[in-house]
């Protein structure tokens, strides 16, 4: 078994044990929310591995939530059924979105996803008879698998983190075999990849649909966990939030998804808990500003993610001769993180 395979097992063990040490409803809810974010973020990073970024991820997250909620609430299906159903629906939707948009140059694709995200959010608010409008949907049935009725935070903790680990494992596998090499080749140079017979468009689509599916699963579980949904958690702001997590973790680095979601969510909590002690009378105003600055700083100094970034800096400082992975340290004219700059005029090959 590979080293990070063991890493996964170790992680699973720690996660399984965590509730035993810290099991207040708050901590569990926090961990559950983090788990859901991990799933979405890993999906986003899978997309990043093909050189694409989405600002519509919250929309897929929300569609998953609404689809599963409505199917179970209004049609009386079992959530055990509606969660996969919702995921498939959203994946199909993503496919339709991808058909025209994935052919766009990458930075126009972002805008397409942004547009989709905003449209979806407007529809959620607008289609009152179906979605309950801005006041949201109440009384969403909890998940029930066979005899087991998911009611407590603990139930969902194990469900969510099982899914999160699965998401990580799958993503890791995808990035480590033929498909993964193809994706990283596309990231490196579409032209180069195509010249070797890599079906760029097809892979882009696969990853896009998959990332949407990731978000949808998380959303669907969220709906049955919180049991109340409204459009606000699925707005453009949420998409930006997910993007921040992905960026903190490193946009092309699966494990970063785990770290990014954890770090950002906890940073949020820590700031919340500690800032008032440092400056009394401080409101939450700082949050937005802090995130914004965080985003900028990371994109400038750690384009390949905080952890990897710091590792590189360290290695760069101690001047270890370049070996794989370590060579990601920044050099003035080459900037890793999102593939090679398509603008040779500004650096690229010196």
């Amino acid at each position: 078994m590979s080293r990070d395979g063991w890493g996964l097992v170790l992680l699973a063990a720690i996660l399984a044990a965590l509730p035993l040490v810290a099991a207040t409803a708050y901590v569990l809810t926090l961990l559950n929310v983090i788990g859901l974010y991990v799933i979405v973020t890993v999906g986003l990073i899978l997309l990043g591995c093909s050189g694409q970024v989405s600002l519509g991820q919250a929309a897929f997250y929300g569609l998953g939530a609404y689809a599963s909620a409505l199917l179970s609430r209004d049609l009386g299906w079992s959530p055990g059924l509606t969660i996969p159903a919702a995921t498939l629906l959203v994946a199909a939707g993503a496919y339709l979105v991808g058909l025209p948009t994935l052919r766009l140059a990458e930075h126009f694709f972002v805008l397409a996803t942004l547009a989709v995200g905003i449209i979806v959010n407007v529809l959620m608010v607008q289609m009152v008879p179906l979605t309950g409008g801005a006041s949201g949907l109440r009384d969403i049935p909890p998940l029930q698998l066979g005899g087991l009725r998911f009611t407590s935070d603990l139930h969902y903790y194990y469900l969510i983190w099982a899914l999160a680990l699965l998401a990580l494992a799958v993503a890791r596998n995808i990035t480590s075999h033929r498909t993964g090499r193809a994706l990283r080749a596309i990231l490196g140079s579409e032209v180069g990849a195509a010249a070797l017979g890599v079906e760029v468009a097809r892979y882009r689509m696969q990853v896009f649909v998959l990332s949407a599916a990731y978000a949808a699963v998380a959303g669907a579980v969220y709906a049955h966990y919180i049991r109340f949904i409204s459009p606000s958690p699925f707005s453009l702001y949420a998409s930006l939030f997910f993007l921040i997590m992905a960026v903190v973790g490193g946009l092309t680095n699966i494990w970063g998804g785990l770290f990014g979601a954890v770090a950002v969510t906890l940073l949020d909590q820590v700031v919340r808990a500690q800032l008032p002690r440092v400056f009394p009378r401080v409101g939450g105003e700082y949050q937005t500003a802090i995130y914004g600055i965080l985003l900028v700083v990371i994109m400038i100094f750690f384009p390949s993610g905080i952890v990897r970034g710091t590792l590189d800096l360290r290695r760069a400082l101690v001047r270890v001769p370049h070996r794989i992975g370590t060579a990601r340290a920044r050099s003035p004219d080459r900037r890793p993180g999102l593939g090679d700059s398509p603008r040779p005029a500004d650096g690229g090959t010196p």
Partner: protein
Amino acid sequence: MTSPLLEVHELTRRFGGVTAVDRVTFGVRPQEIVAIIGPNGAGKTTLFNLITGFLAPTSGEVRYRGERITGLPSEKIAALGIVRTFQHLVVFGEMTVAENVMVGCHRWTRTGLLHAALALPAARREDGEVARAAREVLALVGLAARADDLARDLPVGQQRLLELARALAARPTVLLLDEPTAGLSAGETRHLLEVIRRLREQGTTLVIIEHNMDVVMEGADRVVVLDYGEKIAEGPPAEIQRNPRVIAAYLGEDTETLGGLVPAEPGAAP
């Protein structure tokens, strides 16, 4: 004489007013080595782009084994076995040398997203095969030692060899090399010629854009000369060397490329 494997017929490409490639026609027979030469801006690379589907021709067509392939997307053409390298290096900088070559194997491997996602035995087996193939090819071009380095840390010359290795890993039937010796040392160039000959023996057909006349004289069976997008001459190297139109064309060029006719100084980059 055997029927041509690759046929370029009346191929034309215009950019606005300029005609980069003008009704060019020639054929390449199996296991042949054809060199394409011509002054800078003669349309050589454009010709490659047209053949490999990175550019759509304004008119004319390309046939492969008698089948029309113009209009196919570049990845399809590559999948058919027509693989190219680039004049301006296109290596996957963030991947290791070995991984670069493994991407080359994409063409003849099959496992997809699902296999990978579930890490099915098929995917693992394939990885083994691919890794082996990669090692062989790297050994062939003499990059074995640097297998685990990031591609972007290689010097230009070795990056060019890497591109070649990557293309070889694809096990092409027709291999299009765009200035493969640019930036190579004399030693590397000689080694490259070796490799090219061995490939031909193994049954590969090659089309090479080349400035270094030594390579052309030694390596090529036939030479196609382009000037201002038109084919001005075609024939065995010796003939071409004496062809007045060719010499005129080069004399019309600046001395730097004129040097292309006399043995090129080693390491001369494009």
